[in-house]
């Protein structure tokens, strides 16, 4: 595969151009990372490279020909793009994981033996073999991302464009995938789009470019993140646990049990990093704590409420939640209303709720986005909006499902300041994350999930082996 980009100009209407007259060459086997902060235009560029949007100006040639000069079946084997919303990339035409991966090769009318070979190979690469017969609508976030990656790899593309490709994957899978991408049985160039260089890129990525000043340039070290002013902390009490699990057991229908007889307390004012591989049950734990699933046995006490029996409105006053696929969960047409929603449901008047939401947005540096539609923002801002919506009412327990992922240094600094502020006020903060550095920076405790159990330990202590 050769990709040739000349004089490329990309922009969104009414905004300064992302790229002006940029050039790029890719040869078979190239591994290029294109970096840029939130909103720099990585996704737009990636989509242009994958032929999904036509550039305003300039030329992109795949194997020396323009997009429309390739036949449709040819294109599918030429470029694959894996985006930031993996659940939208499922075909909707498959029931099981295995069928979903086979969907692409089936469309190309490949011989059956070849389809089977590619499907098994892709499942192996992404560690999906044990999930082959599972319903692909009932997967965890990381499992879904793996599935979409596997579906793309099964096409044996010559160019693979990955937009924040490893964001939901556990460390083990990142390492294995990075290793496999280096020895695939076919020639493939890969473009990685990410906010910053990642640990797994070592030994895999050969070139790095950064979107800066309308061009693709060698990356510069990040400027130091801005100092974030933190409001003074009012008086509070830290007596008693914020969350108490008593003999908790849980499992989904038609799946092995996730938790067996777990008993533990999470103290007020703590920041707990919830860790564990994909499918360990991290998101499920947050769902249980929010009253969205019922335990099969045992009791949960969160901020003094039993989430199963409590009136959702009463519980909601004390908890703040962000979901892993937060884009799916926006319900309002304007950012400010989205952020104010929990306040509104607590019975606070519209004007007052909006005012408070505006304050939160201003503190997060997003005051100018208040009137935009959440889904019209770039991915980083969307995640920040979800976060703002979870904290605007001052929850006693804040549960963040991978909110830090994909944030650039400036946004990350704000998130960390916010977590610190809430914990200092006495809130218990639970953060699901695969990012070890982030966990080390913010967490006071670690909650390790896996094999039906949970282990809580201070962040500095050594965890007993799982």
């Amino acid at each position: 595969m050769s990709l040739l980009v000349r004089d490329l100009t990309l922009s969104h209407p009414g905004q300064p151009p992302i790229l002006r007259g940029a050039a790029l060459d890719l040869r078979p086997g190239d591994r290029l990372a294109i970096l840029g902060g939130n909103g720099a235009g990585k996704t737009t560029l990636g989509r242009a490279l994958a032929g999904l949007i036509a550039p305003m100006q300039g030329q992109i040639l795949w194997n020396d020909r323009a997009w429309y000069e390739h036949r449709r079946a040819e294109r599918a084997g030429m470029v694959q793009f894996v985006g930031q919303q993996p659940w939208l990339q499922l075909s909707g035409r498959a029931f099981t994981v295995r069928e979903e991966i086979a969907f692409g090769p089936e469309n190309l009318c490949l011989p059956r033996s070849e389809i089977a070979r590619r499907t098994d190979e892709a499942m192996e690469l992404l560690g999906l073999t044990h999930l082959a017969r599972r319903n692909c609508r009932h997967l965890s976030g990381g499992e879904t991302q793996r599935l979409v990656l596997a579906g793309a790899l099964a096409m044996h593309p010559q160019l693979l464009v990955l937009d924040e490709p490893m964001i939901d994957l556990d460390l083990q899978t990142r390492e294995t995938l990075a290793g496999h991408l280096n020895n695939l049985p076919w020639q493939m160039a890969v473009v990685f789009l990410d906010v910053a260089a990642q640990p797994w890129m070592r030994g895999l990525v050969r070139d790095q470019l950064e979107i800066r000043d309308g061009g693709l340039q060698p990356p510069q070290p990040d400027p130091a993140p801005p100092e974030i002013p933190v409001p003074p902390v009012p008086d509070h009490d830290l007596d008693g646990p914020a969350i108490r699990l008593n003999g908790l057991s849980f499992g989904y229908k038609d799946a092995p049990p996730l938790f067996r007889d777990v008993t533990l307390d999470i103290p007020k004012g703590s920041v707990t990093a919830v860790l564990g591989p994909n499918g360990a049950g991290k998101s499920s734990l947050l769902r249980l704590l929010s009253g969205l699933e019922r335990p099969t046995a045992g009791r949960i006490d969160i901020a003094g409420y039993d989430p199963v029996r409590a009136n959702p409105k009463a519980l909601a006053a004390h908890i703040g939640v962000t979901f892993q696929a937060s884009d799916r969960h926006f319900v309002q047409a304007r950012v400010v209303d989205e952020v104010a929603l929990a306040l509104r449901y607590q019975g606070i008047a519209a004007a007052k709720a909006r005012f408070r939401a505006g304050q939160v947005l201003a503190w997060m540096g997003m005051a100018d986005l208040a009137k935009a539609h959440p889904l019209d923002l770039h991915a980083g801002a969307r995640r920040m909006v979800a976060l703002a919506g979870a904290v605007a009412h001052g929850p006693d327990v804040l549960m963040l499902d991978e909110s830090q992922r994909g944030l650039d240094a400036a946004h990350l600094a704000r998130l960390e300041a916010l977590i610190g502020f809430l914990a200092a006020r006495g809130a218990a903060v639970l953060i699901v994350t695969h990012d070890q550095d982030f966990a080390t920076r913010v967490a006071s405790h670690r909650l390790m999930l896996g094999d039906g159990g949970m282990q809580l330990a201070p962040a500095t202590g050594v965890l007993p082996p799982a």
Partner: protein
Amino acid sequence: MLYRSGVSALHRTGPLTKLALVLLAATMLPIWPAPVLLAAAGLALAAGALCRIGWAMARRLAMLLVPVGLALFVVHGFMLENGPARPLGPLDYYPQGLARALTYFARIALLLTVSLLMVMTTRVNDLARALDQKGLPPAAAYLLTAPLNLVDGIADEAAAIRDSLQVRGLAARSGLRARVRLLGAMLMPLVRGMISEAGTRAEALEARGFRALPHRSLLDPLTETPAEVRLRMGLLLASGAQLLVLAL
């Protein structure tokens, strides 16, 4: 959302055979009187019960048929003038209208029962694959199965929005008023979500070569026993015969 997993005989029967069964039921409607249609519907429900989906089926049928039935009987039996009227307490009713309502009701009931029997025991994508296997262009199979797929898509979407509203304090279990508010609050984001996602989904299908070629090959083709093929032929012949009766 419609499909119930299971291992019963009906679950194992090929999608096209079940489609032929729906066709047979559809061709029965204009020909047979209400009691026959109702008996057939009862038979279908009994078959569902044998396949362990009886309760789920009955619940859905009740949800759909009770309001429809009530409306039919009230409108045709009491409101529309239909032949001679008879007194019933303080009201007048029309026996002919009631008979007509019964016919309509029986038709709807049979078609609904048999369709439910099919969709509750058939994975949508198996139906699509069966059509692909018969050599239908992928676009045609897509058109036939898209409405069923849409149901699942909307259900997932709605669940995400419901979760989001519940953790912020609006949930159906807070009472009747909350339930009404909830429906109102879900509508807009659901519509907006469907619209904004349709493009991405279509793009994803195209990127994976969907409809790039006039046919698809299948990783695991569906297999049928000769008995099943004969059964399907029988069902198709019977449907054809009924159509013939209708035409004469």
